[in-house]
């Protein structure tokens, strides 16, 4: 089969599938009771993920090198990464809301790549000498995966901000572990809800949890687990996925520095792309530290993560649009 035809088919198809998937996920968020809708969304995401993987594989076969040399390819790699991280997030949180924020972004990226990008920029072009190295695959793919993870994590932080608007919240997950303690207000406020929850959980678990089997006793209430709320879950999954993206970003930047040092003896040259990768790193490092700082918890880290979302975009795309040239390390060629 003709690889170019296959590519054209796959990129349009992944866009169309993601568009439908986005609508399905929004439907899931709006009407959680419709059966099979969530499964449909997940299936759509999986199909789109495979389509984009196929597209990139076809590119690799056609050009003979790892398909991350131009904007078109990297956009599809990014969208593929976002759909992949989506599955990580959905699996971690078992929450239907993950797709509602990841699908539109993945759809937007594929739309931009297929519809907006001129065909001249879609064609694969030969690599410049500076990029002819095995480091390309290592450095760029890790960077792109970190962008995907950081974007999904920040999107969930935005979702968290939307869910908790107007509330005072205390975050739970961080490196020193201040979370995990019982909120004292909980038992007073949720007394009636706890009974409801008990009933519904009992249906799901077939009454297998010992605690839940006991009839609620108003006076000497036995200890029972205090479940995480939707906001807690969103925040924690956002934190975990940013926590996944941050090591990837660190490894990607280090791989770039080592490559630059091995190839032309300058690990760091403050080129705009490098600088923005550092800025991204600094913003998310600030996010991670804000989570363990007294007085900075609550919604503030999520606001930082939201800013991080835009910083990642500037780092990825903005640097080129600023007219500062591509991240062409071979500055003299």
């Amino acid at each position, binding site marked *: 089969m003709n690889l170019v035809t296959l590519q054209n088919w796959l990129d349009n198809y992944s866009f169309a599938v993601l568009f439908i998937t986005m609508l399905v996920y929004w439907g899931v968020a709006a009407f959680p009771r419709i059966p099979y809708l969530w499964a449909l969304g997940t299936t759509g995401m999986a199909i789109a993920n495979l389509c984009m993987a196929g597209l990139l594989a076809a590119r690799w076969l056609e050009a003979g090198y790892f398909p991350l040399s131009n904007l078109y390819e990297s956009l599809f790699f990014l969208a593929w990464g976002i759909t992949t991280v989506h599955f990580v997030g959905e699996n*971690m949180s078992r929450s239907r809301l993950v797709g509602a924020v990841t699908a539109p972004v993945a759809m937007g990226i594929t739309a931009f790549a297929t519809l907006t990008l001129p065909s001249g920029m879609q064609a694969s072009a*030969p690599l*410049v*000498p*500076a990029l002819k*190295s095995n480091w390309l695959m290592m450095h760029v793919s890790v960077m792109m995966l970190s962008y995907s993870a950081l974007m999904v994590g920040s999107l969930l932080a935005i979702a968290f901000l939307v869910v908790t608007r107007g509330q005072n919240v205390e975050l739970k*997950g961080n*490196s*020193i*572990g201040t*979370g*995990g*303690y*019982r*909120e004292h207000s909980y038992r007073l406020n949720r007394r009636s809800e706890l009974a409801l929850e008990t009933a519904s959980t009992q249906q*799901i678990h*077939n009454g*297998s*949890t*010992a*605690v839940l089997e006991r009839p609620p006793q108003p006076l000497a209430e036995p*200890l*029972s*687990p*205090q*479940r*995480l709320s939707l906001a*807690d879950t969103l925040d*924690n*999954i956002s*934190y*975990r996925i940013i*926590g*996944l993206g*941050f*090591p990837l970003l*660190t*490894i990607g930047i*280090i791989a770039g520095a*080592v490559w630059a040092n*091995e*190839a*032309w*003896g*300058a690990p760091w040259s*403050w080129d*705009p792309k490098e*600088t923005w990768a*550092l*800025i991204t790193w*600094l913003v998310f*490092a*600030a996010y991670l*530290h*804000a989570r363990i*700082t007294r007085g900075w918890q609550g919604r503030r880290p999520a606001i930082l993560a939201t800013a991080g979302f835009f910083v990642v975009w500037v780092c990825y795309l903005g640097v080129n649009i*600023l007219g*500062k040239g591509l991240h062409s390390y071979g500055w*003299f*060629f």
Partner: protein
Amino acid sequence: MRALLPQRFFKQELLPLLADLRLAIVLLLAIALFSISGTVIEQGQPLAFYQANYPEDPALFGFLSWKVLITLGLNHVYRTWWFLALLILFGASLTACTFTRQLIALRWFSRTWNFYGQPRQFQKFALSAELDHVSLEQVLLLLEKKRYRVFQRQEMLYAHKGIVGRVGPIVVHASMLLILLGAIWGSLTGFMAQELVPSGATFKIANIVEAGPWAGPQLPRDWSVRVNRFWIDYTPAGVIDQFYSDLSVLDQGGEEIDRQTIHVNQPLRHGGVTLYQADWAIAAVRVRVNNSPTLELAMAPLNTEGKGRLWGTWVPTKPDLSDGISLIAKDLQGTLLIYDTSGKLVSTVRSGMATKVNGVTLAVVEVVGSTGLQVKADPGIPITYTGYGLLMLGVVMSYVSHSQLWALQQNDTLYIGGRTNRAQVAFEREFLEVLDQLSQQKEEPVPPVLVES
């Protein structure tokens, strides 16, 4: 007492301030913010550029004229005193944090495992429960199956897993100090040189661009390098495929001791010094005019105002030098353009071919390229790379969530509680699973339908 004062100031005032997390966050964000300015304003341009683009009236945003820009050093942000001061402050904060917070956290490992012996101690956990008719033994077996390290004392139990998640941040901070140290050591003891050498020439490393105060021992004294040949491979479409330099390292007697062909991404290393393929130029053109011997004419770069690179030379076509032609080359593909004295393009010639101009036969034998080499020695690299390795290891370790569980058996009741530092959602699931399995174990026999959940 007086002598103790500075020490007390350091310990009680300065150190806590430097180790303050809020300062760290502010510094992280400040470095990010100031770094942005260097990506928006063009860096390292000549003064005229800023005068043209940042006029005094009207000033950009009402204040950013070229005078303000130059005074603040915004034309080279990353080398200004205030940016470096910010980095040094950040380094100080990192050091203070590493020693006062991170290394202190290591004490966690030396403590004796704390067991909880009072049921009320379980009330503080969000995830805690009490179960009847479940033995501590069951809990122990179950947690061991879930890869927890379990400790037991009488009727009390403590279990944890993911301890690397506690060590990770310590490794991260220490390794960043190591990278910083490597960079400082490298800048003190390393040097950087640039050489532009024509094909066939031999050179000693002499054009030092940067050198640290202790760079002396790194400078190569007893060897030189001969450029046997420099060439460029082009793709069929005429785009540069790769640059190559065939280099020989010569000892003091001129004997070859090493020979390698380098290209971008493939440098030559000798005696702690690395030679990188970095730049290129056209050095000369070898021509014959009529029946003359082969003449080598140096080619000079032409000012194209940033629109590509051109080299040119002048070839006399009359014995009294009253007339001649200009030969212009733009790359090493072999095609040369010929202009007459009035600046008109009259012909083109390929190397190895001849053409008739101004009544003479001009044969171009060869276009000679020169290789641009970046020469570097950086003794800080082993330290920096160790730091890189540890940093990568540390950030990955830091992803792991440290989960801890406590259990207490009193009479017929088992109290169980637990917490984790990062993955609350996953831990909650695991904890409920543990409760499920424990309560299933006690109601035996278990109908198969109930097991599935």
